[in-house]
């Protein structure tokens, strides 16, 4: 399959990119690593007439350690996070996750912002950023606005991004030194999209005790207070979370998510990174 015809643009600034998207009148698409949009265009599932390539935007690759948080340019690649080439506010969670996204070839090109904007429920960053309550900075024709990660994704492949907006940066608050995290991904084989994702973060400093149930039909389900699952396992609490995530008891999907959630909870008692 070859993509349908489109005009290619390689803007030099965010403002220029946004202007191009605005002019494309809904027929434009921004692309960064092209690890999802590229195949979709080749399959002609996506047929933008204007392709706005963000890879020349240096400001999208900048990262800043703000002390209480790290600001990631949306164009940071999975590989840069995996390799520790950018600061890590997450006590190892982000590098752990990054190193298990698809395959290295994909990680070399795929970006944090691209993955979030694509909003595949089975991808990793939509889940991790919701877990960490990250702040997404969106740039549009009227300047910038920020959105909580948990409110960014509306459903499978749909987000609050307007047609002429791009994700510019992602701000991730620094976990306290005593924080613990766990991440459990179930997939058929290494590198495949997840069939179930569950993750926890427990940070005594901030009091955050959050969990997510991911790789569901829509956006990840955020359990804002996961104490009932962290302080000893609670079957009823788990069941209500799983059902709230849209999973149907008795189904295969419910079963694998239930196991993922319980295993993620169990792993929370182990040292960070000793995940397996």
């Amino acid at each position, binding site marked *: 399959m*070859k993509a*349908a015809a489109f005009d290619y643009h390689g803007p030099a600034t965010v403002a220029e990119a946004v202007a191009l998207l605005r002019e494309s009148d809904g027929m434009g698409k921004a692309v960064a690593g092209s690890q999802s949009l590229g*195949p979709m265009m080749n399959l002609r599932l996506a047929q933008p007439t204007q392709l706005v390539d963000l890879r020349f935007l240096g400001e999208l690759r900048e990262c800043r350690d703000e002390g209480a948080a790290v600001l990631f340019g949306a164009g940071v690649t999975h590989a840069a996070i995996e390799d520790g080439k950018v600061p890590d506010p997450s006590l190892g969670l982000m590098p752990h996750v990054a190193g298990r996204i698809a395959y290295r070839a994909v990680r070399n090109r795929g970006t944090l912002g691209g993955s979030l904007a694509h909003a595949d429920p089975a991808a990793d960053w939509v889940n991790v950023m919701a877990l960490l309550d990250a702040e997404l900075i969106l740039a549009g024709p009227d300047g910038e606005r920020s959105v909580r990660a948990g409110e960014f994704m509306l459903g499978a492949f749909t987000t609050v991004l307007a047609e002429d907006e791009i994700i510019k940066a992602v701000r991730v608050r620094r976990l306290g030194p005593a924080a613990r995290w766990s991440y459990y991904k179930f997939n*058929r*084989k*290494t590198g495949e999209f997840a069939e179930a994702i569950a993750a926890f973060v427990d940070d005594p400093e901030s009091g955050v005790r959050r969990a997510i149930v991911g790789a569901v039909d829509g956006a990840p389900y955020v359990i804002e207070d996961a104490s009932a699952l962290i302080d000893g396992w609670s079957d009823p609490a788990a069941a209500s979370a799983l059902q709230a995530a849209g999973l*149907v008891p*008795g189904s295969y999907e419910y079963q694998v998510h239930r196991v993922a959630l319980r295993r993620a909870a169990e792993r929370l008692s182990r040292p960070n990174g000793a995940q397996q």
Partner: protein
Amino acid sequence: MTTASDRSSRKGIGASLTRKEDDRFLRGQGNYVGNIRLAGMRDLAFVRSPVAHGRILEIEKPAGREGDVYTIDDLAGVRPILAASGLPGFKRSEQPVLAREKVRHVGEMIAMCIADTRAEAEDLAGETYVDFDELPAVVDMLAGREPGAALLHEHWGDNVFLETHIDADLEDIKARAAIHVHRRLRTARQSMAPMEGRGVVAYWDKRLAQLVVYTSAQMPHINRTGLAECLGLDEGSVRVISPDVGGGFGYKGILLPEEVCVAWLAMHLGHPVRWIEDRREQLVANTNCREHHYDIHAYADRDGRLLAVDCEAHVDSGAYSSYPFSACLEAAQVASILPGPYKMERYRCRTWSVATNKPPILPYRGVARTGVCYAIETIMDAVAAEAGLEPYEVRLRNLVLPQEMPYDNITHKHFDSGDYPEAVRRAVRAIDLPAVRERQRRGEADGRLIGFGLAVFCEQSAHGTSVYHGWGIPMVPGREPAGLRLTPDGILEVRAGVHSHGQSMETTLAQIANEVLGIDPQRVRVVLGDTGTTPYSTGTWGSRSIVMAGSAVGRGCKELRERLLHVGAWLLGEPLDAVRWEEGGVAGTSGRFELAELTRIWYLQPQRLPVDVHVGGLEVHTTYQAQRDSGAFSYACHAVVVAVDPELGKTEILDYAIVEDGGVLINPMVVDGQVYGGTAQGIGTALYEEMAYSEEGQPLASTLADYILPGATEVPSIRIEHMESPAPYTEFGQKGIGESGAIGSAAALASAVNDALKPLGAEVSRMPLSPRAVLEALARSEAATAARAQPEEAFV
């Protein structure tokens, strides 16, 4: 006589010589159809059916571009592909190269669009509108036999290509059998996945008045015959060239309707035309294989000795009969090979090749045997469980014994040689079964369940004329040819009609030449894949090439050696019986002549030759047929240990050992590679691969994100141990092993997973043994324990 010291420097039979072809492959210098660029070449894209079954009401070509879009009505004189089996009762299906009136599977080609680039051709395809009257689809082979099922080929009256019977009266055996086991088993429809898809470039050579077709194919001569038939050309007007081929596995052993279309268009338009298959076309429309259903019974005495096997088998043949192997290749084989390597008193088997609204089923490495091995080994495990024996013990009690070789089995297969029980014993030893059983008893800290499985099988390789004639396929292989020619500087050109798409024929045929002539393999040029330069052959399939072409090359080299000895003796002034062929030259008592000296004299200094020189010169065309054509039977035992996660249903392979007998190994490294590759494919069959369909006949996997193949992380380190019992009827004692790995692996893994699930009372009866299938089986057994009557599907 070979000594230990020169064995390491040997390059002949038995040497693990590095591959000659790797020099270009590893440097990225391979040349595939997709690399070919011809002046004026344009690209083709197909309009493919979005519905599984329907009547075409209207095809609307894009306005203003009507001339660039072709339907079957435009293809004047093109004949449909017809692969009729010679078996009695076979119903013929005509496959028009573009759909005529009806479409019978999603992805069937309806029209073709030509443009300067593939992208523009796809634009045209997207702008071509087809109006259908949709018909109910036959999606399941069992449902397809039910009364009232929709009909694919209406004039048949049903959906059965062919029904076969091997009958026997089992009543007395049923009466006295202490053990009776019964299983219903299903294997998934799969999609072969060679790294390189199909691809065709064709042009009309005006000077030679010849159609030249580059195609990624395993059997260019057969493609040439088929193309000539469909296009109404004489075969002299067609040249087929298969350059480097990136994996075949059976998919490249058929005539594609696309080949006919590209060729016709090139002739019609007068410029080169190209079609390169993309992965979606391959998955959705072109590479389907494997789907079987078994309803199998075994009867045994209380010691687990088989008395009889009784089976009803269905093969989902898809919509059409592919050329040349036909829609019945799988089912015909099922009936004849289901007994496996075992002895039994009685055998009954009925098979049905059922037409469904899915792409035609194609031969895939292991053809039928992968499913058959799974069926018979599952039933052997069941017998073992009933008899209270280790599964390997039941195998040992039923396998043909070495002292019984050669052995004619219940379906008249002539097992030529080997020690089957020894392969089982060695495999069990290699896996350290007592330690596995102990670990199983101990239990795992992570709660996973350990399972041990094994599969033993024999593979009829390089079977010949009588066997294939008996299976009724329209293309029966005969004597296998080879052409050999020495050049004045002593290079040996070997022309063989088989092809190499991973088999390493360029290396192994050169090794055979080295064995006979002592010539350095680097001085042997192996020419393959071009009907213009190689002798007519049915090509590479059925694990036949190293036996058939390898033996032909060996014979040709021996003939050349005789001719050179004659000249050498004359030049040395010695009698013929005083000289011998030694280290690549003629040696006598008074001196020696090297091969390159002899060839130079032969061609350039003929005044020095004897008067009675062989009239054939230094070119030999020879053909080979084994002493008997019933096949060289390789065999193997696969033993595997798995850990199954009972909560997620996921399986990890912990250990894998194979004991394999390929007879005399020409190149053990190449054999290992074949076994590894086949085993990886069997791992896919057992655990991952499934081309599922919706009730409407829509394929549910159209990209490799949905169709899961095993990758490097899913294929474990596999230990291979070789036994080498020479085949009694082949030139060097070699046996074919090309398919072996793909035959036993799926069965061994199923056996292992079910062994792991046994403590929970669960058994998976279908492939792949995916997490979903394992969890369903567990839920069923839980439900069965809790209550008695439960629905079929455990998950909603």
